[in-house]
């Protein structure tokens, strides 16, 4: 069943139409990757899905609800969370405060503590540093915090925008392992990545975005073995 259905999405930046009619869907339980070069419009799509920027045309449905014009803050309690590009953790607040903000829409205290324990279990480093100001964490730790923060809201669908950007190869592996684990625990994932190889290797399905349009789609494996894709994105 489709959890997220995007139809004919069109988005402009100023006078430039960055997204020229994109349609895709994410089924419940899947990891779907959106890959493409820098400037293909991946982040624009993510921002438009959460209505951080406006859409020119198109519709977005989440479960059975039309969320085309639902403001960002109302999407979170519906079960749609986003880890934005560049992580955007609250640098001046502590790790624990960041996690609390992730659970802003969940008022159940027992549930909050349970979730917090779960996050700390997954990333003991966050527990160690919970009283530390988040800006002092390393890039990889900040990415873990950003993902944990998003998970605190119990999302059905997690939107991940360039989670591996700027991270050391070691952390890239950790982050991708975590994405797979989050997915196995029942969260559907829509992943935007420049690291196409990694993204395709964990994705059930993927869409290739080229200058504002979907150029190709298929399962992760199909695209990994597609010659054109290999040449364009995998550097083979």
């Amino acid at each position, binding site marked *: 069943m489709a959890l997220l259905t995007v139809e004919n999405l069109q988005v402009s930046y100023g006078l430039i139409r960055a997204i020229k009619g994109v349609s895709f869907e994410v089924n419940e339980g899947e990891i779907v990757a959106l890959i493409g070069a820098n400037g293909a419009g991946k982040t624009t799509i993510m921002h438009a899905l959460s209505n951080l920027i406006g859409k020119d045309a198109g519709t977005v449905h989440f479960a059975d609800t039309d969320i085309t014009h639902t403001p960002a*803050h109302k999407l979170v309690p519906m079960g749609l969370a986003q880890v*934005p590009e560049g992580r955007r953790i609250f640098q001046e607040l502590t790790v624990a*405060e960041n996690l609390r903000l992730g659970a802003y829409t969940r008022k159940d205290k027992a549930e909050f503590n349970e979730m917090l324990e779960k996050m700390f279990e997954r990333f003991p480093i966050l527990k160690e540093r919970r009283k530390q100001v988040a800006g002092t964490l390393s890039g990889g730790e900040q990415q873990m915090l950003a993902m944990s923060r998003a998970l605190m809201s119990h999302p059905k669908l997690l939107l991940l925008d360039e989670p591996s950007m700027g991270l050391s190869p070691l952390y890239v592996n950790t982050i991708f392992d975590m994405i797979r684990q989050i997915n196995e625990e029942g969260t559907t994932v829509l992943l935007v990545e420049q690291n196409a190889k990694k993204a395709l290797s964990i994705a059930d399905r993927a869409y290739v975005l080229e200058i504002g349009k979907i150029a190709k789609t298929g399962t992760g494996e199909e695209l990994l073995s597609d010659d054109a894709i290999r040449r364009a994105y995998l550097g083979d």
Partner: protein
Amino acid sequence: METLINGLSLGGIYALIALGYTMVYGIAKMLNFAHGDIIMAGAYAILLVVGMTGNLLLSVVALIAAIAFCVLLGVTTERLAYRPLRGASPLAVLITAIGVSYLLQSIAQLFFTSEGQPVSTGAAQLGSVTFLGANLKLSSLITLGLCVMIMTALTLFVDKTRVGRAMLAVSEDRGAASLMGINTNLIITLTFAIGSALAAFASLFYLMQFPVVSPTLGSMPGIKAFTAAVIGGIGSIPGAMVGGVLLGVIECVCQSIPALSPYTIAIEFGLLIIILLVRPVGLLGKKRREKV
């Protein structure tokens, strides 16, 4: 000692107003130059309730009325004048704020003429107490005490509550805050409401010391409190408190020294220039990290 207490209580007033500037700047990223006129509006509300009665109990009622009126006014201006400009250039918002300031002053003039009108809050008849040989005005002590209480409460609210944390989040990154499920418009409205309520307290305290109401009453304390906010580091709550108190004490000290008193305002703004030269972000201001 007397000068110090007077300075601290005047500083407390500046700090209350400076908090309004700094919180709105921190959270809505705009300089609300109409903030001083919210104080003026509060002062007229107090005038209407208390008048010349000098009744202390009535002053308390007047304070409540002023809070209600200022909050309503602050939230309304945000809604009608600033919210439609969200995302517009900062210059457009700044000009709008100046426009709102003149609009409020003109409306006051329309209703109350431009004449100054005396008001008696009953502060004068409170008298004074002698402490360690110093003659301290009770009204100054009350102002000081209440300012400390209000600022403590505000600090606790911002640091310890869920909504306070949301305010900090919006202040740091509005987009990321909305991805947490925080209704950023609501938080901005709330910030205006808190700033305006603090301004209402400032109205009463100000009238206790300078008991004349006129349409331009808010200009001078407004601009001084803004200076205080910048000295302390605009956007920083403790900065506004420190800047306000510093400015108040300097003002009272200067005025108590005959040779300096004519230059009081020059010295205050001179201090601003020096601090900005040495530390452009203000005393407690933080350098914003560049966003990647």
